[in-house]
């Protein structure tokens, strides 16, 4: 998140570094104020008043030792439908003043919490979302990674946004399992940055059940934007993250007990920030489109913007969850590593064995070698323009795939920045990266294309519609890096 606007800053004064209006204070506006660092009674962390634990004397310059906040999963959305095969939830987008690291921020939220309420469904459920736009701007909800009908995809390409004060009902069946997320697809760079995002957990009834789950949403705070033509800036790329938050908290604590098996579902909702997520004995079990084909135990897992990963914690002793420096250059960054949060175990003990997860061990589909659709990425930070095939959205050439065809799409990156390519309405399989096939079948809906690399993907074009295809570095979308892939 960039500092779109600081309403006011605790313990001192500050201003807008990247103005977005909103000079009204939370107290003046009467908006809801949430505090991430000071947990309220509700699980969401939303509060109805200004934080009571703020220093009473703002002029005091003495630092205080405050207890580290506790990391909890975002509160879940209430299922309003008793039918076990239907999940009906209500979401309202509205302004919210909330606190990050001692600063009050005027943002936007779903149901008064950031991250928004987690929507939990089972594979095969029908999800219906009664959405109300309580903002003064048009918005939508895009169901990132879910294969929804085009009309439900939350895009304004051949559709309308939900206007201020208006309602819209999203409804679709979910035949997927895994960790997904939802966010606006209008003015996305700004609206996501202000706090409009939440997680969707699609459970597979066939999966073994862990003792607990942690849904953790990583967002960047104080992210610099270097895309500018200011003659005196560095012309670097967006995404230099000054601080990361975990469910809105800076360096919180997650209490756990020895013997617990915890499934952690992590989502990177940063506009441009990358992280390499690491903890001891990392067990990577799930990716964008559900369970991996095989358990993976890497040193770290890179989360590009919009990436998700599921991990399994077999708790024995406490450990730190680390964000290794990584940048949108598609490589480790020159910076210090930072602790994202701590898993705290008061009484260390023996770690349990992992769950018997149904990894299918599938091998990758062979690459036939030819290409049906080619997307080439270009751009430059100091112009702020980013193109696909030399075109700036919305002035684009629509490529088409016949409905039902297994098509080969080649992604080439001829720019300095990595580009996490996201295709709406479909998952896709990674066939090769720079000519090398993955060890196991790898299904994604967003895949990071490193600078100067070639990624080939296979897409089963089984969902008719005009599907947005774009980089998920949101300033790059603003800079034009989006197109449409038609399935008909």
């Amino acid at each position, binding site marked *: 998140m960039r500092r779109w606007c600081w309403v006011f800053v605790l313990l001192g004064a500050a201003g807008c570094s990247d103005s977005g209006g909103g000079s009204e204070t939370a107290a003046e506006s009467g908006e809801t104020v949430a505090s991430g660092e000071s947990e309220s009674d509700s699980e969401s962390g939303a509060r109805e008043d200004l934080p009571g634990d703020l220093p009473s004397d703002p002029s005091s310059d003495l*630092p205080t030792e405050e207890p580290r906040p506790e990391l909890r999963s975002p509160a879940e959305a209430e299922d309003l439908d008793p039918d076990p095969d239907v999940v009906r939830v209500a979401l309202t987008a509205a302004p919210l003043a909330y606190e990050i690291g001692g600063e009050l921020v005027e943002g936007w939220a779903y149901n008064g919490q950031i991250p928004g309420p987690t929507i939990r469904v089972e594979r095969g459920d029908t999800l219906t979302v009664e959405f109300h736009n309580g903002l003064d701007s048009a918005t939508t909800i895009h169901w990132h990674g879910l294969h929804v009908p085009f009309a439900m995809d939350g895009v304004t390409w051949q559709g309308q946004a939900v206007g201020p004060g208006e309602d819209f009902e999203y409804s679709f069946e979910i035949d997927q399992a895994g960790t997904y997320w939802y966010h606006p697809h209008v003015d996305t760079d700004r609206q996501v940055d202000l706090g409009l995002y939440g997680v969707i957990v699609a459970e597979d009834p066939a999966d073994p059940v862990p003792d607990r789950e942690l849904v953790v949403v990583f967002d960047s705070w104080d992210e610099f934007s270097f895309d500018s033509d200011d003659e005196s800036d*560095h012309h670097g790329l967006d995404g230099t993250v000054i601080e990361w938050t975990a469910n809105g908290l800076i360096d919180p604590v997650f209490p756990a007990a020895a013997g617990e098996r915890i499934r952690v579902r992590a989502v990177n909702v940063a506009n441009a920030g990358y992280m390499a997520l690491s903890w001891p004995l990392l067990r990577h079990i799930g990716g964008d489109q559900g369970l991996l084909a095989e358990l993976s135990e890497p040193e770290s897992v890179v989360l590009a913007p919009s990436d998700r990963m599921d991990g399994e914690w077999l708790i024995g002793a406490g450990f730190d969850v680390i964000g290794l420096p990584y940048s949108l250059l598609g490589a480790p960054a020159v910076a210090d590593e930072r602790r994202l949060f701590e898993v705290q175990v008061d009484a260390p003990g023996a770690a349990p064995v992992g769950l018997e997860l149904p990894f299918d061990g599938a091998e990758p589909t062979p690459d036939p070698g030819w290409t049906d659709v080619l997307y080439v990425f270009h751009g430059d930070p100091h112009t702020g*323009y980013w193109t696909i095939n*030399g075109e700036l959205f919305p002035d684009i050439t629509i490529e088409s795939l016949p409905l039902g065809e297994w098509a080969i799409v080649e992604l080439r990156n001829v720019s300095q920045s990595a580009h996490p390519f996201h295709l709406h309405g479909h998952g896709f399989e990674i066939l090769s990266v720079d000519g090398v096939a993955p060890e196991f079948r790898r299904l994604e809906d967003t895949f990071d294309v490193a600078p100067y690399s070639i990624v080939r993907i296979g897409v089963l074009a089984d969902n008719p519609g005009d599907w947005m295809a774009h980089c998920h570095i949101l300033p790059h979308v603003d800079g034009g890096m989006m197109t449409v892939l038609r399935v008909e």
Partner: protein
Amino acid sequence: MGWSPRSAATALGLLGLACADDGPVAQTSTSTDSGSESAGSETFATATSTSESESDSGTDEAEPIPEQIERSVLVLLDGVPLQGAIVIQGGTGVVVHTDADGRALALIDTTIQGALVLMASDERARTKASEILVNDASEIVFELESIEPGDNEAYEFNPAGVPENPGTTAECGHCHQAFKDQWFGSPHRRSASNPVVQDIYAGVATALADQATCEAAGGQWWVGVVPGSDQLAPRCYIGTGALPDLNEACGDLAACDGVATSFGACADCHAPAIDGVVGGRDLHDAIGASFEGGVHCDLCHKVESIDLDGPAGVAGRLRLHRPVEPSPSPSVGPWKPLAFGPYADVPNPRMGASPRQHFLTAEFCSGCHQHDQAALVPGASLDLARWPDGVFPAHSTYEEWRAGPFFEIAPCSSCHMPADPTLGNGADLTADKLPMQGVALGWLRPPGATREHTWVGPRTPASGMLQLAAAIFIDKAVADGTLTTQITVRNAGAGHAIPTGEPLRSLVLFVQARCDGEVLTAIDGDVIPEFGGWLDRKPGPEDWSVWPGAAIGDVVRVVTEDGWVDYEGFGPFGDGSFDVTQKGLPRLRVVGQSRVISVNGDQVSFDVPLPVGDVAYRGRDGYFEAGEPLAAAAVAGAPGFGFARVLADENGMTMVPHHRAVDVVSDNRILPQQEWTSTHVFAASCVDPVVDAVLLHRPYPVALARERGWDDAQQIMVEVSK
């Protein structure tokens, strides 16, 4: 707002001015006038705080300081308040500009690791720095001095250095080792020392290294200049060259070296760092660093501005400014350091940096990568009906980019200078050195701000740039035992035409079809044009059984001429100025081919009778048949196609070096995001034949490469089967 872990006493400048690798440079000091020979003393002496009494901050070391503090700044230029000056804190990227009174309020981030330093910068001056004393809130005054105008011909360029040798501070690479290593592997470093350049310049074949070989090839074993030196030695003079071509009565009986007076301005781009006067220089004047270093650090960073109206090179478009002010200190050389670069936060007085935006623009690259040329050979002239401005585009990479979709979107550096993720800045800053950030080592810049000085392209094969540039799409259909396939070649990745730059380059597309391993016979369709090379060419109805010089295994390819290829190329080849005949690319179609199986004098026999056609080309096996698939061969008339800018000289010879050229007879190179589809027809013996298509990048025409003995290895750009 929070508190910085930095205590007030440690929030002081690190003023060491040598490289980080030179030992303990992290002197924690506020001294601004040490009396040493450090060039830094001047900078800090002139960027003064009005109160230096608290040089040790006067605070308890344990006392915390705010994460952000304010400082009032006054910037003067030659003693006068300067409006619009850049004020920036090292390590933040946050900029403020001075107002009409020369003042600005800077917010200082005290959490930056290393030195807290504020800088003032302006194009008219060298950037200066001032350390920030946390407990001294008095106004910081920067006294900038105008850079004295004029280019100093007495200045001697600093060398870059060589890899694996840190050298001395006289070499740019001493402090910028990564840049040095990257540059060393780049084509820019070889701009003068490249034997191909020297061969074309002097009319030499360096590879023909002894008299017998030379004379057997038709050359003359004459004494001439050894490139890069002042030595004379026997060399093989053969064929065309800039010196013999541009100087009348020269090169007939002896080498032109040392005799010629017309140099074609080759040195203005190929050896731009020859010390002394710019322009009118002999490429043979390039000796030492100007030869070995070609286009090097100190040359580029002495380019003060770009004059787009000037001719290519340092005597025209690239305006050099070598410093004229005497050095303030013997430690930094005879002249006051001066270096132009893209960023405003380089205050090291050893550099004398002054910011220039052109380093981030394509206009800078146009300084040599746009060359419009008149007829240079004495007595030759252009056809003014075709080239009314009296010049033709010899190199037009810049204008190709300007005319394409990436103009104002992605300048040259966005592709050809990849970001370096391993370094925090151009002074080799790494994570372990973050606490040492300061004037010497600079500060951490955001990802993408540090660019590799590699200039990746076709001459850096490992970069994969050629593979990113082009794509092939195959469509095919079989009907009545005939396979018709359409091959589309798209310029998918390049921001300019492919090929671009040196017009000796071409792209050659090979196409074949197979049924269960059996190669099908091409019966119609497009072929590789004449610039694909031929060993002999005979229009019908000459005697096609006589082929002087033929060898067993040679292939004779017969084609028909079917009008002209209508394409949309660069400039007049695509803007409607030229009609299809003026675009100059004959449309040739496959008839058939035969292989030479025996030779008797000039008389040859073929494996199958030659078919009837308009033209026959004798050549060699193409990509699919050759045992050495990447060796360039004469393949005109083979199933496929090709893309090139074809220059011709006064005699109608094509694919000539640009110094000889008087015309661009055709230019069907593929412009950015454009494509070309060729059609090929084969006799099919199965229901679903496999079509193979390969696009090769060829650096030199076959005939010229053979004459000079050049390594003419082609590169595969893309290879697809369907």
